[in-house]
């Protein structure tokens, strides 16, 4: 039983470039995942408008009844978010690890076009390894 349900990466215009499902009952088809990603992108932007103080960089954590959603935004505007079980720890660290993998295996790939869907084998392999490692650590507690 993994604590992570799914992982999304969206580019700076809000388009979905990567989606991986790790075992939720509500598996989404491509269209739905695209819609959800753009919706999240807009919500993230609107939340910055509603901040009572200056310097808001958008939603970092959304808590719902049955899941938590952690979001990490890089300096370039690429957003990484993960849907997990409520109360899962260390998701921020996991998102930073995913960001590092993204820079190593996607951005440094000379055949990868910016803002396009990610189709890099090494990225997938290493991402699965990172999630597995995380899973072992979580279950081991």
């Amino acid at each position, binding site marked *: 039983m993994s604590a992570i349900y799914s992982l999304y990466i969206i580019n700076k215009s809000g388009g979905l470039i990567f989606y991986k499902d790790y075992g939720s009952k509500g598996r989404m088809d491509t269209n739905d995942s695209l819609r*959800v990603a753009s919706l999240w992108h807009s919500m993230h932007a609107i939340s910055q408008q509603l901040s009572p*103080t200056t310097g808001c960089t958008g939603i*970092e954590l959304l808590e719902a009844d049955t899941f938590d959603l952690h979001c990490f935004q890089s300096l370039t505007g690429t957003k990484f978010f993960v849907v997990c079980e409520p109360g899962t720890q260390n998701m921020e660290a996991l998102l930073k690890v995913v960001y590092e993998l993204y820079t190593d295996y996607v951005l440094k790939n000379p055949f990868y076009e910016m803002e396009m869907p990610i189709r890099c084998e090494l990225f997938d392999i290493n991402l699965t390894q990172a999630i597995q490692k995380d899973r072992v650590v979580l279950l081991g507690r």
Partner: protein
Amino acid sequence: MQFFGGSEISPSPPTPAATGAGNNAHMIYLFNRNGVCLLYREWNRPLHTLNPQQDHKLMFGLLFSLKSLAAKMDPTSADKGNLGVPQLPGQGCSFHSFRTNTYKLSFMETPSGIKFILVTNPRTGDLRETLKYIYNLYVEYVAKNPLYSPGTPIR
């Protein structure tokens, strides 16, 4: 919040869990199910991005969409409605709070469609009990007030 004499209001206000000295809350909004803002109070809001009408509309719109998103993204239910279809209060999974680096927004919706929103500093804990308490105050003093007409801002 004023506590007028009688003990018919229950539960008693929960003690905030060590959230620092001084005023914790930035703003509070109350909406009914049609999007009419019934109450808006601010205690600490250095930045105003929009005029009040637009601000209320934006807040309501954000919450409506986030609720729809949460229902759609719910990983534990297999059958979900389409995005954008209005969810009945209580149907499907709903979010109860979100946090950014500058504020934390806590949300509660009652079965009658009244939405309570509290914007506080990011270190605040779970405010669901506080929102329930505010709801009880609302029931006591607003809903039971014979001179109050539903759908109009609270005075």
